[in-house]
């Protein structure tokens, strides 16, 4: 018995751990947090471990009757492992590829920068110098030839994001490793052959620009400035520069970026873009939108004399042009500061800073014709990519414009946390407390959930208001504008689902169902825990489409894949046909199933089990109430004897329940000497015998510090109150059952109606069938659980033989009002 309870407690603890881990992982999907693959691996392994503890505890409680659950867990954990261990091999490809062969879909092979240049060159026809890519497969060949792959993996595993000290060390070792490695002959020949392809007969052999083109670079993530670029490289240095660029994959800055965005080692593959050096008289950068005002149709262009490095490096102040799309290139704004220096190519290779000729210092780099042409490019690129672009351009000695790079422009997303005022004073605030389960703002008419049937008629755009959280609400989440509940915790099952569906949700408001009226229009600000009367458009301003710049990164893809095996809840209705161990398809299903059945197992405590238990005491309360106590540990003060007094019991739920029980008058002061007459209602000895209930007047309570299971036999009715009360909102629950009575069926049913009405006022969910009532409440904070238990103590005694007095429906109503007013001290 005590053992069973210990298992139950273990189960609750593990269940909470799982739910907390789940919400932690899910929170990472918002894009507001730093995390890496290690985090996912660690979280998944913890979740599997804790879920295993939940399943084991349930089986220990029930002598292994839930083995099927362990089987389902094994299955799910295998799927999780698979999702985590997927290694993407670098696909076999030519060592070099001409830009003419490339497009965006070949980003894995050519790296982001080369793929983009190929895409622009081949799909938009904009002038991109004809160059070639050294593929990522070449990178693999290079590493393999030097047996570096395993060593790199091992070294990368050595540091974590929170350990920046070791980062520099690891980076240095990795760079040295690359520098000491030999570029295999076949790769060297391939690079040289591709270079020969750039040379036109009868023309000078060009010097080239070699730019990093890592996987993922310049795609959704920019890696801006993370990797090496070499300008004006002479043909003889191609191979050594290649090694330098590969080594730049491992600079501390780049490593951090890689880890931060969650790339796997094998996804850190470096390609290189090689293109003939443009001898530019001017160059610069073009943004197809202004990052700070993306809604305006205007193109931002910077320009410097010479090579473009100075346009972005902050060395000199570049020309600034803001030009219109229509008419193309019309100048909206222009600043031409003096540009004293420029970067130019040296004839034998390399670049040099030189003074700008005096007549050009204050002259604009670009003519209206150039601006017009660049504006047309911007329009072409936006039309092609369907999103703002960040472009590098160069103007050669023959007055031709070249496009050297195009990549997505990061337009900073407004963070949802930057919502205006905390509380808008000018609007009536209906609720201003609770726990936020999912941020956001939603508005609509209040829809009160009283029974499951209410879900069927849930209107689109309604604000769901309920007493408790329930995973069943998932069925209306896609159409709910917001969710508000009286109780519940942000790490509970429903909260996880609300985040999955992004429904603004406030839990644990304490009184939402009492304050909000059905049909009333409200605005729910789940950023700041406020519910306002009416629809407040100011708060509802169409949110900036939330651009999550991590959304396409590998770590995100992995997290999403993994969460699909963890978060979704398929076991919604305990009465449903799929509510079985085999029906569990996710971790969430498993813990929900185990939690549900652990409570059933706990509640199955039978009298025979109780009698067999040791540590049995009798309650000495001075009241006509025979109570036998079984302490599971921590429920009764140490040093108890056969009889214990109520004040020696320290069980939290018992204390509260007892307080209520002794608040109501007990049957006492029976006049002595008055003659009593047996009535037709008195059960005969035979009837009692047929009921086979020799413990008719004996009540039982099983206790621990946080737990109570009280089977009460008072008069002719049986009631049972089971409760778990602790600081862990998620663990707290209370069940109440009531049945029987000595009076006529009519009066017993009247009493059931009375209890039903009162239990409803106490905010419990309940079911009534004839004279039997079952009520349940879960996930309320400790104080509120205590309050409910006090109330149940009162109700238990209040209803003792009350059926006798329930002569008519009218008197039932009077009693309901009396109890609510006098004993719950609530408004009727």
């Amino acid at each position, binding site marked *: 018995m005590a053992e069973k309870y210990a298992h139950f407690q273990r189960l609750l603890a593990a269940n909470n751990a799982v739910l907390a881990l789940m919400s932690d992982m899910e929170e990472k999907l918002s894009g507001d947090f730093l995390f890496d693959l290690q985090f996912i691996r660690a979280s998944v392994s913890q979740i599997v471990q804790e879920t295993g503890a939940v399943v084991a505890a349930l089986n220990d409680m029930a002598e292994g009757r839930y083995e099927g659950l362990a089987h389902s867990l094994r299955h799910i954990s295998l799927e999780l492992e698979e999702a985590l261990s997927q290694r993407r091999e670098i696909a076999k490809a030519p060592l070099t590829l001409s830009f003419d062969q490339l497009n965006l879909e070949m980003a894995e092979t050519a790296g982001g920068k080369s793929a983009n240049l190929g895409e622009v060159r081949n799909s938009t026809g904009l002038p991109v110098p004809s160059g070639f890519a050294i593929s990522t497969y070449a990178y693999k060949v290079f590493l393999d030839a030097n047996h570096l792959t395993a060593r790199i993996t091992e070294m990368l595993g050595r540091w974590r994001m929170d350990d920046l000290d070791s980062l520099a060390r690891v980076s240095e070792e990795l760079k040295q490793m690359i520098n000491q490695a030999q570029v295999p002959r076949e790769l060297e020949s391939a690079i040289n052959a591709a270079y020969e392809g750039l040379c036109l007969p009868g023309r000078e052999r060009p010097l080239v620009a070699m730019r990093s083109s890592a996987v993922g670079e310049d795609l959704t993530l920019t890696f801006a400035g993370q990797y090496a670029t070499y300008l004006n490289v002479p043909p003889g240095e191609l191979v050594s520069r290649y090694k330098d660029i590969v080594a730049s994959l491992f600079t501390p800055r780049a490593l951090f970026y890689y880890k931060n965005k969650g790339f796997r080692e094998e996804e850190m593959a470096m390609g290189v873009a090689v293109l003939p050096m443009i001898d530019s008289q001017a160059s610069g950068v073009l943004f197809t939108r202004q990052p700070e005002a993306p809604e305006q149709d205007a193109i931002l262009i910077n320009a410097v004399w010479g090579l473009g490095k100075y346009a972005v490096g902050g060395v000199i102040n570049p020309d600034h042009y803001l030009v219109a799309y229509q008419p193309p290139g019309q100048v909206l704004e222009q600043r031409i500061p003096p540009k004293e220096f420029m970067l130019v190519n040296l004839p034998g290779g390399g670049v040099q800073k030189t003074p700008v000729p005096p007549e050009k210092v204050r002259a604009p780099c670009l003519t209206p014709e150039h601006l017009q042409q660049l504006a047309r490019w911007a329009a072409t690129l936006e039309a092609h990519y369907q999103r703002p672009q960040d472009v590098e351009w160069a103007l050669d000695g023959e007055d031709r414009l070249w496009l050297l790079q195009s990549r997505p422009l990061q337009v900073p997303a407004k963070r949802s946390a930057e919502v205006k005022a905390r509380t808008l004073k000018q609007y009536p605030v209906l609720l201003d407390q609770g726990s936020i389960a999912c941020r956001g703002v939603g508005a609509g008419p209040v829809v009160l959930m009283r029974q499951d049937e209410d879900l069927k008629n849930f209107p689109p755009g309604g604000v769901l208001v309920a007493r408790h959280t329930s995973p069943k609400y998932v069925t209306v989440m896609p159409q709910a504008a917001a969710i508000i509940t009286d109780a519940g915790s942000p790490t509970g099952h429903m909260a996880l689902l609300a985040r999955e569906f992004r429904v603004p949700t406030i839990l644990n408001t304490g009184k939402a169902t009492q304050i909000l009226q059905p049909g009333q229009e409200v605005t729910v600000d789940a950023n700041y825990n406020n519910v306002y009367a009416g629809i407040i458009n100011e708060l509802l301003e169409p949110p900036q489409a939330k651009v999550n710049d991590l959304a396409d990164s590998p770590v995100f893809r992995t997290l999403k894949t993994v969460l699909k095996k963890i978060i979704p809840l398929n076991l919604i209705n305990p009465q449903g046909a799929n509510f079985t161990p085999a029906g569990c398809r996710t971790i969430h299903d498993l813990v929900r199933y185990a939690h549900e059945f652990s409570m059933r197992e706990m509640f199955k405590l039978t009298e025979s089990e109780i009698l067999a238990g040791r540590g049995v005491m009798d309650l000495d309360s001075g009241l006509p109430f025979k109570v036998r106590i079984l302490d599971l540990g921590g429920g009764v003060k140490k040093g108890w004897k056969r009889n214990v007094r109520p004040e020696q019991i320290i069980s939290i739920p018992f204390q509260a329940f007892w307080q209520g029980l002794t608040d109501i*008058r*007990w*049957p*006492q*002061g*029976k*006049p002595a000497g*008055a*003659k*009593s*007459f*047996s*009535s*037709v*209602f*008195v*059960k005969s000895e035979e009837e009692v015998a047929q009921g086979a209930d020799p413990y008719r007047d004996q009540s039982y309570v099983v206790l621990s510090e946080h737990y109570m299971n009280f089977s009460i036999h008072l*008069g002719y009715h049986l009631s049972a109150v089971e409760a778990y009360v602790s600081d862990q909102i998620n663990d707290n629950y209370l069940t109440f059952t009531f049945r029987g009575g*000595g*009076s*006529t069926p*009519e*009066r017993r049913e009247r009493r059931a109606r009375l209890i039903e009405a009162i239990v409803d006022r106490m905010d419990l969910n309940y079911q009534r069938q004839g004279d039997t009532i079952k009520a349940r409440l879960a996930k309320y904070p400790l104080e509120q659980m205590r309050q409910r238990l006090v109330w149940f103590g009162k109700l238990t005694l209040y209803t*003792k*033989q*009350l059926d*006798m*007095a329930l*002569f*008519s429906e*009218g*008197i039932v109503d*009077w*009693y309901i009002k*009396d109890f609510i007013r006098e004993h719950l001290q609530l408004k009727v």
Partner: protein
Amino acid sequence: MSYQKTAKDLMIPLEDYPHIPYWFSLREAMAIIREVVAKFGGSYEPRAVLVFDEKYQLMGILTLRDIIIGLEPKFLQETGLIKMDPSLTVLTGDNLGPKMKDQSQRPVSEAMSPIKATVDAKDPFAKALYLMIQENVGLLPVMYDGKVAGMLRLSDLFGEISRTVLGD
């Protein structure tokens, strides 16, 4: 002929009369009577509630008179020293209401009248009539196999007599 009728023929089944457990308060008894009057009006006679113990045995009857006496504030109660005079009620002033409210929390067992007599279901109604007059009660339990099965009311007996006397 009506005087051939037995107690059983004229009794009201037990479940049709309002009941109350003995530890319940006078206040509750009053609420019950008010509700029953609202339901049955003049046919609810005498205005009383049956008092039972926890084993559903009949212990007594609580009439309007019993309740009113039970609510009587202590300072109006007669003692060996003070003889109560109705004129003294002028002294109660505003105290009467609140004091009676306090008193209404008393258990009905302290105010009820004990059962002074019963009749058997097979007894002729004339015997019941005789007992009621003798014991000065308006309500009499009817026993069936040694258990209370219903109640006889003076008003029902009066109805029977009326029919005989008035000849219709």
